[in-house]
Each structure stands twice: as C-alpha cells, then as structure tokens.
C-alpha cells in the first residue's frame, strides 16, 4: 500500500483552490478545459471543493475530435449529470465536414485541425478570457517555465520571453481586449501527486486507466485498442485480447496502452513508482491539456514519433519507500 504524505497533498490542494477562486473572482468569462483524463478529473474535484456549496461558476469545455474512446464520452456525460456542471462540447465542424481523421491525414495534421484549431474556435466563440488547464510543470522542460497565470495575446500566442513575473501568490490577472489567460492550477503537482491525491480522495476515473482484457493490435510495440469499427487494420493485422491499461487518455487510434496487471489505484501507484520510462511515452501525440494543444514558443508539434514501449519492471512493495519517483520527462 502506498504511503500518503497528506500534509503535502493538502498544501497542493489549498494552493490549487486559491488559484481557481482567483480565476472566478478576476475574470468575466472563465472556462475550464475538461479532457476527461486523470488531471482533468483532479481539476474537476478541486473546482467542486473551491466553490462548495456553490456549483462550479464556469462551464467545462471538452474539445471532441470524435475519435475519443467511447467510454470517455459516457464518463464525461455521467460526471456532468452527477455534479451538475455546465458542459460545452466543441468539434471543429470544418474538420468534420472534410472527414479529417488520424488514418488518412496523419496524426500531426489531424491534431492540428481537430484539437489546436478546434480549441481556438471554441475559445473565440465563447469569448472566454481565461481557460483553466491541467498542465503540470513536471511534464516537460518548456512547461517548467510557464507561469500559473500565463498570458496569451489576441492570437492565442505565448511569449516566453515576456512572461509576467509571479511573486508570492499575487497574480496579475489584468487583460486588454482580445487577450486571454491560460491558468494552470496544478502546475506544482507531479504525476505521483496526482495519483496519490486521486487515491486519497477516491476520485472516480474512467475504467480505461485500470487493467482489463481489451482488444488490441500491436504496432511496432505500441498497443492500440480497437474501440469501434472505424479502425483501419493493416494487412494481416488481427485484434487480440490482452490485459492492458492506459497511462493517458485521448484519441483511441493515437493512444498506446501498456501491458499491465494494475487494476486498482494502489497497484497503479506502485507500478508507476517502479517505472523507468516517462509518462509521455505512451502518447503518440501529446495529451489534451490546454498548453500542449497550442504552439509552444511559436513552434507547432511537427513531429510525432512512435516511441518504444519499455515495460515497467515489477518491483516488490518493500522496495518502494527508498525508490525515487518519476518526476521528469521530455524530449
């Protein structure tokens, strides 16, 4: 059983709640990105806590590429029902009309049109002045330099050389017309913090995170789950059932599963602590967080490489305490 450092988690929780309240108090039209993954689930939980007994005072925005795991959409709708939040689902209708899909158009073009452009459309359409996202500073090297309140010009561009200094907890939330803010309340959380918090707070996640027998194909080491009949098999490919789970969730044809027996939160945490590979290696493209869907420092995600899956080495629970934690990732 993993040990929980509750004082550390409580401090992170309080910091995130303070940030969420600052958004609600300072902006006219905030919106929270909801990607249905574990980070989003933590954000949702924190937002419920921040405003209790009020309902979350801003809508949740899901950018739906139409290629998400079906289970994610079911889960999303159930959460909206259960917690009574305002859910906005946006799909790039141009992309839909042109039949943009990950098989014919390649993952980078598909991602650009159905995610990056779709997000901008949704933000512009809603005239949102603040978009709350679940990005963390431990995810990537350039992310480590992003502010908690990260300014975007009217073209949604981030200028890392002219970021506003952030001192103490005093956040400069002022905007000129057309400008907007990206806000990252869990900036200071690590992947392990996210998982231990989910465990401590018993936050519900889509079952895809937990090991189960699922139909997959193995493409050069990446396990792709067959979620519906739109999947295009390569010649000779056949789905076979394997016990797998996902470390991140996204578009099913672009999301690699890992072979794992971890079917409970403690098992996942222990497996993760033993892992010698970074979180992102399961992604064929980056996840659904706000920052990653946008240009970073003026460059787009141009490449998409299939990284080899390195299987987690099993480790005994007793070895966990002294074992350092996966904190760092990136190319």
């Amino acid at each position: 059983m993993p040990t929980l450092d509750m004082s550390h988690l409580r401090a992170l929780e309080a910091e995130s709640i303070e940030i969420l309240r600052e958004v609600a108090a300072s902006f006219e039209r905030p919106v929270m990105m909801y990607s249905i993954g574990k980070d989003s689930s933590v954000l949702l939980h924190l937002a419920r806590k921040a405003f209790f007994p009020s309902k979350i005072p801003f809508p949740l925005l899901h950018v739906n590429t139409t290629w998400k795991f079906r289970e994610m959409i079911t889960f999303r709708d159930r959460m909206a029902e259960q917690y009574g939040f305002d859910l906005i689902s946006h799909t790039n209708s141009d992309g839909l009309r042109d039949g943009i899909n990950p098989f014919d158009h390649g993952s980078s073009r598909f991602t650009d049109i159905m995610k990056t452009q779709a997000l901008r459309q949704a933000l512009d359409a809603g005239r949102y002045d603040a978009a709350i996202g679940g990005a963390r500073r431990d995810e990537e090297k350039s992310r480590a330099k992003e502010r908690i309140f990260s300014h975007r010009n009217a073209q949604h561009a981030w200028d890392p050389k002219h970021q506003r200094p952030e001192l103490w907890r005093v956040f400069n939330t002022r905007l000129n017309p057309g400008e907007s803010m990206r806000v990252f309340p869990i900036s200071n959380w690590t992947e392990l913090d996210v998982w231990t918090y989910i465990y401590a707070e018993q936050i519900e996640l889509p079952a895809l995170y937990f090991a189960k027998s699922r139909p997959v194909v193995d493409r050069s080491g990446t396990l792709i789950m067959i979620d519906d009949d739109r999947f295009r098999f390569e010649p000779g490919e056949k789905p076979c059932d394997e016990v797998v789970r996902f470390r991140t969730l996204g578009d099913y044809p672009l999301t690699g599963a890992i072979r794992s027996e971890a079917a409970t939160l403690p098992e996942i945490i222990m497996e993760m602590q033993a892992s010698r590979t970074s979180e992102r290696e399961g992604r064929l493209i980056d996840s659904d967080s706000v920052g990653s869907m946008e240009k970073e420092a003026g460059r787009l995600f141009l490449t998409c490489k299939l990284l080899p899956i390195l299987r987690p080495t099993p480790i005994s629970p007793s070895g966990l305490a002294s074992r350092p934690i996966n904190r760092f990732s990136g190319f």
Partner: protein
Amino acid sequence: MTCGSVDDGKSTLIGRLLYDSQLILDDQLASLRNESHNRTTGEEGIDFSLLVDGLTAEREQGITIDVAYRFFSTDQRKFIVADTPGHEQYTRNMATGASNADLALVLIDARKGVLTQTRRHSFILSLLGVKHVVVVINKIDLINYDQQAIEGIEREYRSFAQTLGFKTLAAIPVSALKGDNMLATSARTPWYKGKSLVPYLETVDISEDKSERPMRFPVQWVNRPNLDFRGFSGTVASGQIAVDDEVLLSASRQPAKVAQIVTMDGQLQRASVGEAVTLVLDREIDVSRGDVFSHPGEMPEYSNQFQARLVWMSQDSAFQGRSYLLKIGTQMVPATITDIKFRTNVNTLEQAAANKLDLNEVGTVTIATDKPIAFDAYSTNALTGGFILVDRLTNATLGAGTIDFGLRRAQNLTYQSFDVNREVRGAMKKQTPQIVWFTGLSGSGKSSIANLLERRLTAQGKHAYILDGDNVRHGLNKDLGFTEAARVENIRRVAEVARLMADSGLIVLVSFISPFANERRLAREIAGDIQFAEIYVDTPLEVCEARDPKGLYKRARAGEIKNFTGLDSPFEPPVGADLVLHGAEHDPSILSDELYGWLKID
C-alpha cells in the same frame, strides 16, 4: 531556489541533483547521451545542463532565460527548485523565485569569486525575506581544489552578507560536473569539514511557525449559491481562525462572529495558515473581495500611504507621480509613487538620491493608494506585505515591493464614508469648514487675536470654536506634562480634535504655542484635505516676558516652572507660515482684522 551568473553552472548543478536522485528515466538518459556529444561532460558522459535548459532559445544562447520549476525528492524531503537565470538582463526573475523560496542556493564560480551579480542576488534574497542561504562554490575542479582560494571566497561572501539578515548561511565547495561534495563528501577536499550539498539540504532547519502569528484572512470570493447561504472564501494567510471567534473587517471595522467554517469535506472547528476555507458569519455585514478579517486587537494597518522597498522589473523607469495599479493579496487599487527617497546600490548597499528607478534597481519609496488598503509590514507577513505594480495601459507587471510601514497621514483618513459629510455640514452653516492654527510664544497675543476673530465671525453668523492650549490641558490633556514627548502628544491630540471639529462643519481656531516645526507639520498632515492655515504670531520674547499676562515668565525665571518655551525649552520659528502677524507692532484688534481679511471668509 538557485541563483548565479551566466556560466556558473546552475543548470549543471540541478541536472546533477536530478541525476543523482535517479530521477532521469531510461528513455531520457539514452537521448541525453546522444545530445551530450561534443559538449562538456562529467565522468558519466552526460551534459547535465541539457536536462534543464528547455527552450530552444536558451539552448542556442547557452543560458537560461526564465524562471523554471523542477521537482525532486529524497527520502527526507520534497523539493521544488525554482531555477532563476543569472543573465543580467533577467535579474527580475530572481525576485520571482525568491518570493516563494524557503532557501536559496547562491552559485559562485570558483574561478571568478564573488561578483557584482552575487552581491545583487544576495541583496534581493534579503529584500524578499529569504532566511536560509547556501553559497555553492562551484567548479572547484577547475582550480584544482585550491583550499585557500575557496576559503577566501567564503570569507569575502560572509563579510558582505553580514548585514543581510540570513538566519542560516553555509558555504559548500562543489563540482557539480564531477560530483564532488554533492551526495557525499569528496576525498579531494579533505580539509572541508561541513556536510555535502544534498545531505545539508535534507537536514537544514527552515521551520517557522506561522500559525502563531496574528490571524489574517483576505476575502477572495464571496460564496453565494442561494439566498440562504452567504460565505466568504479565502485562504488563511497567517495564524488560526476558529468557530465562535470574534473577527473584525479591516475596512469598516465591523465586528462579527465566525458561525461556521465550511469545506466540501465537512465543517471545521478551526482553520490554520495555508488552509483554503469558506467562512460563514453570525450576522449580515457588508463584505467584499479584498476585505481582510482579523482578530480584534491584532488588526492589520489600514491606510492609503506607506513606505516600501521596490524592485523595478521593467524597461520603462519608475517615476514619482505616475499612476499604477497596485495589487496586494486580493486587493487591487490605483496607486502613485509619491516619493523616491533613495536608491540602494545593490553592489555596495550604499544609498543615493534618485528621481527614478531603472530596470533591476531597488529603491525605497512612499506609495499612496487611491483608497485605503489593509496590509502588514513585509517582515511580519509576506502575504499581506508584498505587492506588485501593474501598468495601467499594457497591464504588464512592472515592479514588486515589500512594505516597510504605514505612514501617519494615511491612518487618519475617514474610515467609513457617510452620506452626510463635511461639505453638507459646511453648506448648512454657509461656511467652509477650516482650521486656523496659531503658533507663537506664551504672551505673544494668540488667544487675544483668536478671541476677537471668533467674536467677529460669530457676529456674522458663522460657527467657530477656539481650542485654547490652557483650556484643553484642563481636560483632554490633563494627563500630559511639559516634556518634549508630552508636548508632541499634546499637539497630536489637539490636531485630531481640530480635525473632527472642522469635519463637523466648524471654523476651528487653535491657539497653541506649538513650538516644534515637526508637530506643526504633523498637525497640517492630520488635517488632510481640510483647509488649514498656519498663523505665526511673531512677538519678541522680551515683549512677551514684559507683558506676562499670567505671571508665568516670572515663575519660570524663579525656577518654579521647568521646560518653559522661550526660556529653557526651544521655540522653532516657522519658516513656512501662511501668515505672520507682528504682535509687538500692532494691537490685537488690528491684527485680527488683518487676519480676517486674509482668510477671506465667505
């Protein structure tokens, strides 16, 4: 946090910390080994700085351009490292990192010793209240582990840092590249008796009990889901708050009791510093974002003027008289730098006069806000004493400041505005409420002139009142003697009373010796925006003593009265009086007419 100059090896140091803590994963390690080709590497064949220099621009320039946050943990502690750039152009980022840091690593390149940057960084650390510093003398491999040179650097740093108020200060010689004194003490520095870096960081005591401080609860968001619930959400900035506590609101000073402390996980009996909660009070009082709750008797300062130290972070210089937006805690108000008292040379800590502050400069300033704000001195509470200044056009963050103390004048403003105000009351009496302050020696004719003036005003239907020194000492000030301190307090009280009476619509004539220039200035400041005239009744001491209407000079000369103004206690003649009346040359009636004409009472 870490700070150092360009090429001090900060990125290498942090990379080494991550590597030694085994935080670099297999897939990353492999790609690092490839990238490290043709670069300076340690024995592991890795350029550790590649681990941390994220943005392309930085890699190309070989420098770190912005604050970056790294995470690592050991068995003992969790660390968040704010990696702040050493490049001169980006010094402002250091203040950002320092503002939330418990401990700072100051990097010194052993080949270069203590530099201008080192001094500046240390000064900013001190300014932002960082109490624990580790001087990391890096690259000792490049000077062959020269004990004398290293100890020389440590001595130089310690003598410079003496006045900076650090609670703990350690100097550790390391080679981040080779790993000397990082995890374990190095055999190549047998003379070094201290701990190596990581064990030191794991054990240094940085605890500080903020829960014992006076309670501050800045209201962040008013929580009103329906008509039956009205709560105030915020994070406890210091101290503790409990159910049934009586609390006061900073702005209105309205009292209330805490009825409930609400969280989604259930109600709490008590909330401590750092906890994000929602307070429900026992009664309806007017509360909005920016208000600060505290316990009675432990209120924050509430004022519209204060002295602060300001770190300027913008290419556009800071000037006196320019208007900015000031944000402190959850309060945001327009504010003006009213005075740049001096600039501190960050290399020598010397103070010099200045009329502007440029990028990276630190100045001591007074700031006036458009309306009063609640605050504490930064040294007692960073969260209620630290502020930023924002450009009113571009919305850029231009500077950050730490409050030293509130200024007097500000504390004497009206706290709550009422609909019936001075203008209304003055209009009822068909006059402009004002204070006419007479100063001059005993026997100079102040009271006689004031008396005649009051008669004339009254005859014309005006409402005036004389506050006379002797009379007030019979009542309000009968506890005060005639020492210098007592005279100061005497004047302060009278000035406050005069202000209240003028605020009620009266023309107040104050007849007090008021011998000290400082206190006369204080009286004028206390009056604030009330019309105030200082009238000097200038009558030579010999004339006054010859008149001696109350026989006081005689008694003083006989030694019966001590500290008598003009004899054994000084009178500082006013240099900036609004009107001087020469008491030896004319009768009081003529002087009173002169004064009446000058005052232009409508």
